[in-house]
């Protein structure tokens, strides 16, 4: 039950955040999608032992979060929920890769730990990229971008309908599960004998609902097309936003800024 409420809350929160009007929100969605793609490619293209070179990429989420007025805590919470899988796979690195790699005067760190930390950092950056995109753009505008990119309308319509009905169906499943839990003895889940009937009933109701949805769409003139309205024009500032970040990502990718700063300070030039 609690995870259902959390899901609905999460979707609604991101929906509401996307409706804000800030500098970032007003950037054309296509440019935001392209910037996010470039950002992701830049992150994952770093080799597996890279750590310091990745750090300047933190500027992107920090600047976007502050400029877009996004709350930090819910986004961090979301990140933590996804982290166990990344940690689960990454934690094997220190076990299998024990060659010392970083030698400081007081400690030696193995390559496995470096690559593990690199995976964690990449995780933070990539997860924040996806969340920031949706929190500043919203599903409808992303669908408009897909339309601009000539993705077939049938897929976009299907995606939007799925998205629209998720909250409705989660609520319905939530009600059913609450009713079930009130009538069962401290069961943690659905007992084996009820697997088919409970889920099956939900499914039958869903199919009937799909029929009603279709009829009401027909009543409102549905002809198989989804009209998202005319898209906004791309302004110069939108293009500059993309080019600016793009150049920064390329610079960070090919030039290790922290290492340069570090060597300037410590004077270690060879």
């Amino acid at each position: 039950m609690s995870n259902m409420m959390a899901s609905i809350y999460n979707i609604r929160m991101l929906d509401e955040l996307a409706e804000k009007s800030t500098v970032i929100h007003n950037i054309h969605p296509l440019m935001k999608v392209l910037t996010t793609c470039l950002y992701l490619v830049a992150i994952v293209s770093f080799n597996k032992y890279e750590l310091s070179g990745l750090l300047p990429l933190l500027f992107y989420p920090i600047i976007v979060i502050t400029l877009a007025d996004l709350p930090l805590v819910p986004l961090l919470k979301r990140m933590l929920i996804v982290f166990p899988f990344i940690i689960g796979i990454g934690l094997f690195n220190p076990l299998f890769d024990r060659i010392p790699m970083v030698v400081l005067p007081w400690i030696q760190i193995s390559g496995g730990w470096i690559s593990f930390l690199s995976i964690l950092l990449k995780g933070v950056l990539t997860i924040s990229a996806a969340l920031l995109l949706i929190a500043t753009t919203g599903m409808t505008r992303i669908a408009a971008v897909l339309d601009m990119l000539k993705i077939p309308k049938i897929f976009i319509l299907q995606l939007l309908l799925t998205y629209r009905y998720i909250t409705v169906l989660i609520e319905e499943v939530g009600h059913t599960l609450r009713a079930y839990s009130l009538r069962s003895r401290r069961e943690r889940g659905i007992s084996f004998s009820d697997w088919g009937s409970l889920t099956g009933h939900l499914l039958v109701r869903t199919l009937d609902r799909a029929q009603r949805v279709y009829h009401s769409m027909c009543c409102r003139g549905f002809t198989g097309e989804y009209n998202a309205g005319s898209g906004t024009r791309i302004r110069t500032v939108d293009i500059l936003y993309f080019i600016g970040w793009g150049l920064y990502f390329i610079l960070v990718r090919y030039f290790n800024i922290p290492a340069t700063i570090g060597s300037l300070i410590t004077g270690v030039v060879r």
Partner: protein
Amino acid sequence: MHMADALISPVVGGAMWAVTAGVAAYSIKKVQNDLDEQKIPLMGVMGAFVFAAQMINFTIPATGSSGHIGGGLLLAALLGPYAGFLAMASILVIQALFFADGGLLALGCNIFNLGFFTCFIAYPLIYQRIMRKGYSTGRIFAGSMLSAIIGLQLGAFSVVLETFFSGKSELPLGTFLMLMQPIHLAIGVVEGLVTVAVLGFIWQARPEIIEKVALGEALGRISIKKILAGLAIVAMITGGIFSWFASANPDGLEWSMFNTSGKEELEAPAGIHQTLAAIQEKVAFLPDYSFKSQSETNTIVNETQGNWPVVDAGTSVSGLVGGVMTLMLAGMTGCCIYWLKKRSKADSI
């Protein structure tokens, strides 16, 4: 078994995006040809149903634990393979965007692992063949169980291969397989049992829903040969393009040379190097903080032991110091923007 962006390389992510886009384009074409518009809301609402149904915890008898469904096979069985694949893709897109469950770059991998194997391998080759003689409770059981297990085994195998070829995880192929396949056998059994229970119920309560799909009505029969041929072509093209790209930019796929830092300075032309060195002499507030002698001994020790890559204390320290400085700078930038915005807001009031 959603893959995360942090664990894949751009080459694997890009190639899987291309392959998945190919399968999706083919599915869309088939759906457009065969589907009446009535089915579009059905696909949407069914996608939402599976999304919600994934949150139901099913108590597994005699174990005390619980599991949930993936739903790929259920979608294929109720919508047919093409519409089922597209519905699964929508679910994964929404999960990646709103729940950060599986990254955007790994989306191609995830759609392929969870959608392709169930809808285009397990469903037509196992499920449909078993159901050829007509539906019965026994056949629904055999077909769903086998398809769910094999679909998930193939999906898990694909996760292992994609992770292995990305080269971010140190897990040896064999160990990873030994971890993933048995776990997904158990998950497959649960998935199969839930699918059996649901399809069995629907078969008794509303048989026409299942019969419609069985007749291939409005959804068309699947041509696995066409799919595989198309897939092979896409794989060859993307393989060619990406291997060219990878050889031009070796960082992506290469199993790693360690270069926490210092690489650019070494490769930089003499002019830049000298200017940097000159600036350094003026700026460095820890000028003699070099570990050169120590690093040399370490390097020798490592070479004699056959260890690799090269270890260098100097670059380690400068990387660390530079990293901390960058972090502080990033934090300060955030604080500055926040402060400036707050001030401008206060001014406007």
